């Protein structure tokens, strides 16, 4: 029995295929179209799922869309009414697309399905609820048979925060916070104020926070909490809407008011990143963490559960997730690898499947490798297309020499097996490097990824050995939490904070506050990269590597061998390992010199 789940038309479109309650394939549309956060209907992703499984659209038992479009329309109309006449611009902006297509949603979806397969028999599409899709994506992939589920994001239909209780037979929506009062939008407003793009720059704000100074951040946090919102005892918030414009206009915040409050104007992307914005980033992170800690306390009080499933875009804030975990209110916390809108595709399908069935908890880890995989022939065809020199050897036999290359400070593009599901590279579409070198962070940011110099890199290590180098000790297979680097020492300095102010055995993966966004891996989840880590340990004494997504700034993570080769040719990467093929920079200098790199919009 096949169920197809879709999320589309807002951001991060994706599709997922469920077979008898198990996710067998899932992918985001951006990986195929090469447009970051692509919101178009996931035509390519659906084609991939169907081709891999060898079925057609007519073989699907059910198709489930991840939210309820009419409810969303109702919210838009209601908000326009409430904020009239200031909402005139928003009204003119929103109405044409709604009246033109979005209200006739079934017809719109059918048109897209017919485009994929003209013989599509017009199966009736089902509609889940936005926050239920998030919650279901988390619970029905979790190792629990009973759990509280917390969903926090920008906005779904009406809800901006939902608290559910799931059991193996049922679910219950207990409480909900509604638009316009939203923690997700609040964090996006902070992101916008600091000059980053909404829906993609939030993780930059999180990465910038440790550069903030404690005293100054606390002062800013006080201004934020006094003027931008009110928090209640149960963690719910009420935004002071005079300072925002997202609910009636085309901008997120009231620039003038924010300038009056913080004595600094909205930073534009090109502006220098001054110490004030670092302090502001820290203050905003602290403010959001404080709200989330209150909310999780309330979730515990009303659900009395030992387990928590946390989802929605805000669940990508791994620093806040760690604070929630350290609170020890819940014995177990589960966060799906794609807690954002893409994950809604899985949740919609699983939620529909289990509506009248019993969920049996997973004994194994959820498999996050759900995307396309390429054969040796397909890889070779791509290499030949670019006329590149290469060596072919069974990858397991090359691992020792690859580990030695990494130990020598070389940067490696690592392309193996099935593509990961979710926004993070989990060792199949990764750029790998040694974390032992002080200069590696700068080299990777400026010469490989072409991104801002302040941004940290994440480590990957073997699950059973993580406790030697990181604390607290727990498995973290999807990089959803940050852990502390044991060897971290802070050097006090009055000067502008920089990564040279720290001491650590792994300077390139240790953030300024001593944290690292660790991925733990074992041979069951990913045998190849586990083996590489073991070999790297034999050479250097440490089973830890830098693991960053295989892409450049503004580009989605590579999907196909062609994407990987393009990325290799346009950066200063030393080696590219494509399945069983190894390509070296020094052997392909001509091709690299003659290659015209693709230009991506900076995120």
């Amino acid at each position, binding site marked *: 029995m096949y169920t197809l789940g879709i999320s589309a038309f807002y951001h991060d479109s994706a599709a997922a295929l469920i077979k008898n309650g198990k996710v067998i394939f899932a992918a985001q549309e951006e990986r195929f179209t090469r447009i970051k956060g692509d919101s178009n209907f996931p035509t390519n992703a659906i084609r991939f799922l169907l081709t891999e499984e060898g079925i057609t659209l007519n073989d699907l038992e059910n198709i489930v869309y991840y939210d309820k479009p009419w409810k969303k329309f109702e919210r838009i109309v209601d908000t326009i009414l409430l904020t*009239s*006449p200031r909402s*005139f611009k928003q009204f003119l902006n929103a109405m*044409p697309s709604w009246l033109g297509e979005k209200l006739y949603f079934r017809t719109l979806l059918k048109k897209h399905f017919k485009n994929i397969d003209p013989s599509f028999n017009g199966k009736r599409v089902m509609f889940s609820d936005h926050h239920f899709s998030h919650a279901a994506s988390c619970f029905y992939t979790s190792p629990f048979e009973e759990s509280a589920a917390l969903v926090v994001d920008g906005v779904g239909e009406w809800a901006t925060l939902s608290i559910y209780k799931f059991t193996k037979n049922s679910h219950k929506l207990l*409480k*909900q916070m509604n638009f316009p009062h939203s923690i997700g939008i609040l964090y996006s407003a902070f992101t916008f104020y600091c000059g980053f793009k909404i829906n993609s720059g939030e993780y930059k704000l999180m990465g910038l926070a440790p550069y903030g100074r404690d005293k100054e951040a606390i002062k800013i946090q006080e201004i934020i909490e006094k003027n931008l919102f009110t928090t209640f*005892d149960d963690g719910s918030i009420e935004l002071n809407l005079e300072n925002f414009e997202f609910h009636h206009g085309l901008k997120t915040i009231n620039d003038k008011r924010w300038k009056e409050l913080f004595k600094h104007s909205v930073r534009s992307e090109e502006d220098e990143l001054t110490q004030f914005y670092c302090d502001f980033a820290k203050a905003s992170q602290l403010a959001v963490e404080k709200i989330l800690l209150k909310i999780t306390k309330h979730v515990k009080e009303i659900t009395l559960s030992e387990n928590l499933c946390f989802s929605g875009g805000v669940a990508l804030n791994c620093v806040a997730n760690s604070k929630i975990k350290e609170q020890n209110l819940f014995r177990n916390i589960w966060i799906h690898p794609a807690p954002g809108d893409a994950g809604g595709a899985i949740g919609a399908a699983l939620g529909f499947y289990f*509506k009248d069935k019993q969920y049996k908890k997973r004994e194994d880890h959820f498999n996050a490798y759900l995307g396309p995989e390429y054969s040796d022939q397909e890889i070779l065809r791509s290499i030949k297309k670019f006329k590149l020199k290469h060596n072919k050897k069974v990858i397991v036999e090359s691992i020792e020499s690859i580990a030695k290359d990494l130990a020598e400070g070389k940067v490696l593009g690592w392309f193996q097996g099935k593509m990961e599901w979710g926004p993070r590279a989990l060792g199949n579409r990764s750029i790998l490097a040694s974390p032992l070198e002080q200069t590696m962070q700068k080299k990777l940011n400026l010469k490989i990824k072409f991104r801002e110099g302040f941004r940290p890199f994440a480590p990957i290590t073997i699950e059973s050995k993580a406790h030697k180098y990181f604390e607290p000790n727990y498995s973290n297979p999807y990089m959803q939490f940050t852990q502390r680097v044991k060897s971290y020492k802070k050097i006090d300095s009055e000067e502008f904070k920089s990564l040279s102010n720290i001491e650590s055995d792994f300077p390139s993966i240790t953030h300024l506050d001593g944290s690292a966004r660790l991925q733990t891996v074992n041979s069951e989840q990913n045998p190849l990269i586990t083996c590489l880590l073991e070999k790297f340990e034999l050479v250097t004494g440490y089973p830890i590597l830098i693991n960053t997504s295989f892409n450049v700034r503004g580009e989605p993570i590579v999907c196909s061998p062609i994407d990987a080769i393009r990325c290799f040719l346009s950066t200063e990467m030393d080696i590219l390992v494509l399945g069983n093929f190894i390509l070296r920079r020094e052997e392909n200098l001509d091709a690299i010199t003659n290659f015209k790199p693709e230009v991506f919009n900076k995120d």
Partner: protein
Amino acid sequence: MNQAQLNNLALKILLVSHGYLLFVEKQSFSAYTIGLVILTIIFSRFSEKLNLAIETQVKNIAQFLLISVLTIIYILVFIPFSFFRKKHLVTKSNFTIMESDQIQFERPW
């Protein structure tokens, strides 16, 4: 060769053959044909631009009409109705108690 190139070639053949008839054979009616061909060539060169210009104008007019209709709706419907909408007052909590355990999958609302 695409259709446009074929048409162009046909016009050139017409031009050459009727040029011969006019100047060598002194057939005066060929002057009308030559004039017609020249007009057709000129028109075909500008027809694409003309099409585009008409399309843009129609689009602009349609957009203007849409904005006008939406503006009228906003003034006549949204603004008056907004007086009846009451702002939600929050006192001790901004949570709404839901207690619902069903999702109506069949409906888009």
